[in-house]
């Protein structure tokens, strides 16, 4: 029963498959989906709520235009290996984008919240000892986050 989907063969390698136990991979799903009861006590989710707001970036922004322009100007159209003369772009090729310079805000925020490394991710599965430390880390980014800590607290009795 349980085994079937989880022990699936890794395929031929064109798709990077990840188990559902890695936090980075399930974060998008966990954050703003699931059943909502009309009135319930909501725990203080400060960092995470800010994170989901941050994630709705505007792609049509001047910053994006400038970055695109620079990238396109650097682009060597004759170079099909994409590895020469594109110091910034080369990093992007590596994979999903968690490490790249052009990562989206969500990825950036994930790094803030959870630390960036994927190796780190693998350690979590059987490691309970990092608990207290990581909780602190999640609240440690800047004064504005601290300041809004109370924002989403209890709504009971409304």
């Amino acid at each position: 029963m349980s085994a079937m989907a989880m022990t699936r063969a890794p395929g031929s390698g064109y798709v990077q498959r990840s188990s559902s136990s890695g936090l980075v991979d399930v974060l998008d799903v966990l954050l703003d989906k699931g059943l909502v009861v009309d009135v319930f006590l909501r725990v203080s989710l400060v960092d995470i709520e800010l994170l989901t707001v941050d994630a709705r970036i505007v792609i049509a922004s001047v910053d994006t235009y400038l970055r695109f322009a620079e990238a396109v100007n650097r682009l060597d159209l004759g170079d099909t290996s994409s590895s020469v003369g594109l110091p910034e772009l080369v990093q992007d090729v590596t994979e999903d984008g968690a490490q790249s310079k052009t990562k989206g805000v969500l990825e950036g925020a994930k790094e803030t919240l959870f630390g960036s490394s994927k190796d780190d991710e693998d350690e979590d599965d059987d490691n309970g000892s990092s608990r207290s430390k990581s909780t602190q880390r999640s609240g440690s980014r800047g004064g504005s986050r601290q300041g809004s800590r109370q924002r989403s607290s209890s709504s009971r009795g409304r």
Partner: protein
Amino acid sequence: MPEYVYAIVESSAPTPDRPGIAGRPLRAIRTPDAAALVSSIDAEELTLGRAELLAHNEVLQAALETGPVLPMRLGTVMADDDDIRRRILDSNAAELHAQLTRLAGTFEGEVRAVYDEAALLREAVQRDPHIARLRARGDLRRSRNGYLESVTLGEAVADAVERIRQSDADMLLAELTPHCLEVRVSPPVHERIALRAAFLLDRDHSSEFDDALESVARSQAGRIHFRYTAPLAPHSFVALGGAA
């Protein structure tokens, strides 16, 4: 004592043998139509960090191994067992039961298709002569009027990228949706996202979806990278009272 609520499962579903948040024992509050998986927490205020998210996720994953799971929104805390019975289980009994039935034998798979940026930009330039012209002009006088020209060029690239994304998203959905029960497309979170979507899959036929994904990924090798996370509880396919 406040209770953290993880998910709704079938009335007779076993309680997963996992600790809850902060190592607290996991319990099931059962009614004839459905059961709630919960664990106690000390205070109504709780900051969810890495450890809490992992615990939450592990409970859902373990529950998914034995039957349908309706995940609660992350961070759902209720006053006590009675509150949970009254405001979740009893008041939504029929709907919860119906969703558990509908989602039995399914799981969610998340697909993220991300462009190789160099390939994407090269394509944008090559497809659109306007961009190539702007780019050539920029080369000639890069030191002067740089800002405005860069914005104009960048905007043209962004438009081209959006058109490419749109057509790729349509193509990918056309390839994949015939092999799923339902699909939910999420908005892109950065410029290189070609498609981010959740697919509801039938456990007995999920290999067909796998094959389709593998095949489309092969056809896009070097251009679009694919990342696939499964099996997940059907987070994207549950709602109460028609609310999203």
